[in-house]
Each structure stands twice: as structure tokens, then as C-alpha cells.
């Protein structure tokens, strides 16, 4: 264990030259990831990195507007209104808040401060979702939303979600994931692959991937487990430049109509910057 040096008399040391506020200002001109890293440089850097001037800058400019849109019943609204900017930043990175009448969640990507959204199942267009024979809506404690959609049985599987690019962070490549899990009695997804697709605006230039959602032993698994216990599979990605490309549409389909499918539980579609997490 290293002995702590008494006072640093090294006059090369910038922390003797620059006051902490200046260091904070300099750090605010870097990125959230850089600031977090800089906490490990020296005690002065560590202290300088905790300033509201820094994290206030990294919060999206419309952050407070978005929060005010949160369901007023949610405790997160009360909580966030009493937080400092630093606290709010880190809170939103770990605890997405539910907005827009409970249909969507909003959070931040820690390394970049960019906006992340999850479209709840209720916000998606799921064919036959309102026919109880095919789909069931239920409450599960492990979902952030009040309801998730459970597939009872269907031949025509068509799940689609859209998001306005103007609410996303500019100059960012976003990736869309379907957030789901299987119930114990799943069927059909090991037999037939599903089509995954993301496109921007009206262009129809997006690529379609075809994968098995529930692959058998020697077939590659494209899904992975999330931190919150759900599974996710990448639907595709798109680049948002200025937010003026209209909507991004993300979909999962299996519509050959020969294979019945059941047991898929959908929480929503998660849209976040590429390489986050």
C-alpha cells in the first residue's frame, strides 16, 4: 500500500497551478466517459469531476421537459425534481423513467449522455394483439411497464414499433432491440426464423436479418440476456443526424403463415446508442 504524500510540492503539478473550478470547466468540455475516468487520476481531479457544472452540461437540453412529461403518479418524478444535476444524470443512467402515459421509458447512456428510449409493448403495433384468443396482456413485476404482451398462439406474427427521430440525440447511431422472454410453453420459434428489420423514414432501405429466436443446439444464438433479466435481440440500427428523418421503424415478423407460434412475451423495443453497454 502506498504512503500518501504529505503535500505535493511538485510545481509541475497542474493541480497546484489550476484551481479546481478551472479543472471542472475543462472536464465539462470532454465527455461523460472521460470525466468518469478522470476521477482516477488524482484527488483533485476526483473532486473536480463531481461538479454540477459538468453533469449539467451532459444532460440533454430538453431533459427537464421530458421528465415533466413523466406520469405524475410515478415516484421518479418527485425524486428527480429534488436531485442535483450530477445525481440526476447518474439516476437516469440506471433508472429509466416512465413517460408518455406509461407507454415509453426514458434514460441516458452513461458514457455519452445520449438519450435512450424503450417503447413499451402497448406502444407497439402487434397484429392481433387485441384479440384475446391470440394475445394476452398481463402484469409482470419484472417489467418496467404496467403491461407486457404474451403470445398465446398465432400464425401471423407482426410486431412493429416506431420512434420519432426528433426526440433522439443528434449525430448518433442508434440500435433497436426487441426485449422479450419466452414462457415455459414456447413453440414455433425453433422451427422458423423471424425477420428483423429497421428502417429510417420512408426510405425502405433498411436491411432485414433472419434469425432463429429460439435456436436449437448447434445454431447460433443472436439473443443475449440483459441486466434486467429479459432477453434482447438486435432488430437493426440507424443513424440519426439532425432528427429530421421522420420516424424510425423497427419490426419483427414471421408471416409465412404455416407455423403456429406461441409463448413469446414482449416487454418492448429498446432503442439506445450503439456500443452503449
Amino acid at each position, binding site marked *: *500500500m*502506498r*504512503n*500518501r*504524500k504529505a503535500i*505535493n510540492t*511538485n510545481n*509541475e*503539478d*497542474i*493541480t497546484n*497551478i*489550476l*484551481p479546481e*473550478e*478551472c479543472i471542472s*470547466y*475543462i*472536464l465539462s*468540455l*470532454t*465527455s461523460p*466517459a*472521460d470525466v*468518469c*475516468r*478522470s*476521477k*482516477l*487520476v*488524482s*484527488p483533485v*481531479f*476526483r473532486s473536480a469531476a463531481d461538479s454540477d457544472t459538468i453533469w449539467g452540461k451532459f444532460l440533454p437540453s430538453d431533459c427537464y421537459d421530458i421528465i415533466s412529461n413523466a406520469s405524475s403518479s410515478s415516484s421518479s418524478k418527485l*425524486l428527480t425534481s429534488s*436531485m442535483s444535476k450530477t*445525481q440526476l444524470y*447518474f*439516476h437516469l443512467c*440506471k*433508472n429509466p423513467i416512465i413517460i408518455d402515459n406509461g407507454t415509453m421509458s426514458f434514460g441516458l447512456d*452513461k458514457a455519452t449522455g445520449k438519450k435512450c428510449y424503450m417503447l413499451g409493448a402497448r406502444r407497439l403495433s402487434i397484429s392481433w394483439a387485441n384479440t384475446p384468443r391470440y394475445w394476452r396482456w398481463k402484469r409482470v413485476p419484472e417489467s418496467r411497464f404496467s403491461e407486457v404482451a404474451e403470445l398465446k398462439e398465432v400464425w401471423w406474427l407482426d410486431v412493429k414499433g416506431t420512434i420519432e427521430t426528433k426526440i433522439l440525440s443528434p449525430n448518433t447511431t442508434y440500435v433497436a432491440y426487441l426485449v422479450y422472454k419466452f414462457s415455459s410453453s414456447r413453440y414455433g420459434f425453433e422451427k422458423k426464423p423471424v425477420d428483423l428489420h429497421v428502417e429510417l423514414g420512408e426510405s425502405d432501405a433498411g436491411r432485414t436479418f433472419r434469425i432463429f429466436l429460439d435456436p436449437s443446439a448447434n445454431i447460433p444464438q443472436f439473443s443475449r440476456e440483459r441486466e434486467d433479466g429479459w432477453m434482447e435481440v438486435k432488430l437493426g440500427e440507424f443513424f440519426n443526424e439532425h432528427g429530421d428523418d421522420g420516424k424510425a421503424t423497427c419490426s419483427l415478423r414471421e408471416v409465412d403463415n404455416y407455423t403456429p407460434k406461441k409463448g413469446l412475451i414482449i416487454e418492448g423495443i429498446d432503442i439506445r446508442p450503439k456500443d452503449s453497454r
Partner: protein
Amino acid sequence: MSEVDMAVIKPEMMKSYIWLHTADGSIQQVEQEVAMFCPMICHEVIQKGMGSSKNYAISLPQRVNPAMLSLILDYCRFHQVPGRSNKERKSFDEKFIRMDTKRLCELTSAADSLQLKPLVDLTSRALARIIEGKSPEEIREIFHLPDDLTEEEKLEPLKNTTDDPRIRLLNRLYAKKRKELKERQKLKNIEVEEERVDDRSVDDLLSFINGDNGDSKGIKNSKSKKKNRRRKDQQKNTSANEAIKNHNKEPNGLNQVCCSAEVGQTVRAGVGATSNLHDVEDDIFDNKNELDDGDIDDEIDPALKEKIDRYCSYELRKSSKLTVSNEVTMEVEDFARRLNSDWPERMQEILSFGHERKPVHFSLNGNGSLRRYANSEQR
């Protein structure tokens, strides 16, 4: 102004000058329009009427040495000319900031003290570009900073979300551990000592959790009793600690480890932290500072506490080997898993130092005194 000063100014130009002096005592005069570009100087001239003569030279802040002043004045001299295009200014700026990092920092500091915001922005951005994307070691190298974040400081408090009592508790535990380690550093640095340092702190922390939560949760009466007993026994135990330290007794180290082994075992069995364990820890290695934290307001349930126990045991054992990740964001459950897998290795290490081969347990007699008994259970 004196005759001498008048002679300096060319009559046909009739410029006014402002007198400035830097902290080291040197005085100079500067063309008014250049000096007034700095808000701080401007303020002194207008509000206080300073700077009109040598005797009333404006005292510049200490952070402005003559070299920096010269640079700043160059900057002002260029930019205060109204007719320049943006392109020209940008070009000047780019060339201007080409200097070594140390000078950039000095310049930032000086400009900041003179409130010259455009220059502060320019130099700050240059420094930000230097910092971006670099690792902490690289940054330290560039700025000639010593690596004086001790291990305990690298136990970075997790960034707190105010509604997470686990995080608050962990942060407090970190603070405890840091305090702990600071005290230890005052003692001679024996390797064995280090082993015990870890162990002791683990138990302090464990008992800290228990003692403090005994009150708020009121789950187990024994806990509050222990707390009281601990207060009374503080003196006794502290001196016992001293004695132990001085005589460099291994067994205690081992005991600690074994008590924690107990933690590992009970934890694995999924049982909440045993009261036996807490008895042991509270009374052997009590620490005077433990109860200082006044703001215990966490309602921590036993299962959660257990997780934290595991986390702390692991974390503190590993603190000297901790690889510092750029962002300390590990979750409690993760640590528990690691603790379980690393445990055998660690036990081996510690046992190999000891004089005694068998781990020993302390427990309390009815009258509160310590009793040793051999523990046949061994990891």
C-alpha cells in the same frame, strides 16, 4: 506622470497607458485599449480609478506572472482590433495555443483570474482535447501528477442514486475503510500487518452494519445489546488491539479470516448473517470510530445486509489487488459470486502465514468475556 515617462510616449501618438504590476513586484505599462480588453483590469480602471500612474499601478492577481501577462497581452493586442475577420482570429488562436501543457495550464489560470473568458475557453478546450480519450495513467503522465490516490481512494464511492440504500451503505463502508486504512498507515508497515488490516476492517465494517442497523431495524435485540457492550468495552478492546498489534499475533488475523469464512459459508447456505459471527466481531475488534456516523437511516433487511457483508468481505480483501476499472460500477451480486470463487485461494494464502494451523473461533461467554474454541470446520 514624470518627465521620464512622458519621454517614452511619442508625442504624436498620445496614447494612454495603464500601469500594471504583477505579484513578483515588476511593473509595466500597457496600451490602454489592450489592457482594457481584460474585464478585471477594466473594472479596476473604471470602478476604482487605478492604473493611471506608476504609483497607482493595478495589482494583478497572483496567478498572473510576467510571462503569462505577456502572453495575455499578446492575445488582447490581437483581438481587441475590431477589424479582424473570424478566419483571422481563428487562425491566430490556433497558433497561439501551441505551447506545452504546463504553460497552457498557467495561461488558463491567469486568464481565469483576469476574467478573460474567450481566452479561458480557448485554453480550456485545448486542454480538454488533450485529456479526451486518455487513461488515468496517461493523464497523470502528461500533467506530471503523482499517483497519490491511495488504494482506499480508488475504492471509489459508487455514484449514488439517492434512492438506493445499498449504495449509501456501501459508500459509508468505503469511508470507514478509508479511515481505517489511514490509521493503519501510521503504524509500522509489516506485511503481516497488512493482512490483518484487511481482516480487521472487514469485521469492523460487518459489525458496523450490524450495530448500526440493530437500532433502526430492531430485528435482533442482541444487536443493540452488543452495541452497548461495545461502547463499554471500547477501551478494553482498543488496548487489546494495541497489545495484539504490538505482539504481532497471527492468530487474531486467522480468527478474523475464519469468522469471515463463516460468513462465506453461511452466506452460501443462504442463511442471514449469524448472530454468532457478529458477537465475535463486535467484541474482538471494536473500533472507537465506528459509531460516529450519525446519519443511519437505512432500513436494511437481513438478506440485503448479507449481500453487503459478502460484498465488503470480498472488496476489502481484494482492495490491494483491485484492478481499478475506469468506472466503478460493479454490482453487489457480482461480488458475491467472485467472493465465493476466490475464497479457497485466499484462505490458503492467509493460512500459510500463520503459526497456528487450525483456525480458531472466539465466542462470548455469558458474562461477556471472550472464549476461544477450536473450529473443526475448515474451508
